[in-house]
């Protein structure tokens, strides 16, 4: 049976070149980068070379790159660490209503600690209006944190415009670029951000490693303590192999970006248009153009997402959904609900995210299988019946 992995926004397979770059540091080159001897120096050189490479790829300086365990930790440091550093200046933070939980839950934690959070809305296309950010700014605002691209619907946020507003107001801007990295060009100066989060496993690198870029100037306070690594912002022995692998993965992603994006955009459009032309009562979620090239998020009315996932899984196809039944809670995706969808549309959503290994045959296979699956589930659905009556 054909195996079609269309869940690249969850994670990506690590590239062979990345694995090869890491292997020496998982075996003979095992030194601790903080040690003075040859073993230590060897590891230190690898870490600093990776830092410089990553810095160059995102238009930053090496001393502005902090290695972390991944996107969640970087977001936490950016938000909780900035709050710690600036709480004497103010206790107000602005974010959006469609952020990843790494950002939202950090903000909710700060609310418990006496901070006020403004959650700016998005329109029905899943995009923040920069003017809403401007209106939300206050004297005591210490941070704005808005994602670069959404992880569920792939919508790209107007970060440059938001950066102009925050710069004018003198407020720090953080962007969670976890889902954007590898798909969009990241240049911190062009974007105008003060902090930026990325995670290696979203662009064919290893899991458990990410960076927080922090523009030269005031730094967020650490959340953990223990050593001098990463200028005490994130102490702990450097994960040398992961750091080397992340640099390699980002280098390859940037190198191949235009070519891959062009191909994936075509395949993604073929998928969306194929579904729209072969299955009635479907809705594309998120802006049709202002979205990541690999993202298709479609709601199939009258049926529920988990049933769709498992039906596709049985045919070798991996996808995900914003349905409550897949989240472990009773609530469907906050992203879809905050875009103004009703429960049925959110429960019936399917996220299909393509990757560099996706072929035209893969998309044809999905388009061949989906109509029957949808028909079968709709035939069972009391909602479909009600409509037909």
């Amino acid at each position, binding site marked *: 049976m054909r195996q079609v992995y269309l869940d690249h926004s969850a994670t990506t397979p690590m590239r062979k070149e990345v694995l090869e770059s890491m292997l020496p540091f998982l075996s003979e080159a095992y030194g601790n980068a903080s040690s003075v001897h040859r073993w230590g120096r060897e590891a230190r050189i690898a870490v600093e070379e990776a830092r410089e490479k990553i810095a160059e790829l995102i238009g930053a300086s090496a001393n502005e790159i902090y290695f972390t365990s991944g996107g969640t930790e970087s977001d936490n440091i950016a938000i909780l660490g900035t709050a710690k550093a600036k709480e004497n200046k103010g206790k107000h933070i602005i974010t959006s209503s469609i952020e990843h939980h790494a950002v939202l839950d950090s903000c909710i934690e700060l609310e418990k600690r006496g901070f006020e959070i403004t959650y700016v809305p998005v329109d029905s296309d899943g995009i923040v209006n920069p003017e809403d950010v401007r209106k939300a700014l206050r004297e005591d605002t210490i941070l704005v944190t808005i994602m670069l691209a959404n992880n569920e619907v792939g919508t790209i946020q107007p970060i440059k415009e938001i950066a102009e507003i925050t710069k004018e107001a003198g407020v720090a801007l953080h962007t969670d670029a976890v889902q954007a990295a590898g798909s969009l060009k990241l240049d911190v100066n062009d974007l105008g951000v003060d902090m930026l989060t990325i995670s290696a496993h979203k662009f064919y690198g290893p899991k458990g490693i990410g960076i927080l870029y922090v523009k030269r100037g005031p730094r967020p306070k650490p959340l953990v303590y223990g050593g001098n690594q990463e200028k005490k912002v994130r102490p702990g022995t450097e994960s040398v192999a992961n750091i080397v692998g992340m640099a390699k993965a980002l280098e390859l992603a940037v190198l191949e970006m235009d070519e891959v994006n062009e191909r994936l955009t075509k395949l993604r459009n073929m998928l969306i248009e194929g579904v729209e032309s072969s299955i009635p009562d479907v809705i594309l979620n998120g802006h049709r153009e202002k979205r990541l090239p690999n993202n298709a998020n479609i709601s199939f009315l*009258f049926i529920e997402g988990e049933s769709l996932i498992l039906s596709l899984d*049985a045919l070798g196809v991996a996808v995900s959904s914003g349905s409550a039944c897949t989240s472990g809670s*009773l609530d469907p995706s906050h992203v879809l609900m905050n875009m103004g969808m009703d429960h049925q549309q959110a429960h019936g959503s399917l996220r299909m995210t393509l990757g560099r290994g996706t072929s035209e045959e893969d998309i044809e296979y999905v388009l061949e299988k989906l109509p029957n699956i949808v028909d079968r589930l709709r035939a069972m659905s009391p909602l479909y019946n009600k409509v037909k009556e």
Partner: protein
Amino acid sequence: MYTEKVMDHFTSPRNVGELENADAVGEVGNVNCGDIMRMYLKIDENEVIEDIKFKTFGCAAAIATSSVMTELAKGKTIDEALKITKKDISDELGGLPSAKIHCSILATEALEEAVKNYREK
């Protein structure tokens, strides 16, 4: 996460569909929580459930519990069928993930609702 039996009832559900001239229909759940079950009963003069069909909007567990409920209830008297518990359904499926126990409760409630509809007639 699901047992083979759940997957079997999900991929080949028993008694799915509607009953024309049903003696009773019961529907529970709502779209907000992501599950809706509707049961159709055909009941003979001795109050035996002659035939039963279901339609369900929901996850694999919701579809599987509906399917098992129809199997368990078919051929029983109404009173016997009302004694089917969420545990009977879960046991029949070889167990359910804890987050999906509510689906087995929904299946018992759907039958209760159908019986209520019958008795009100």
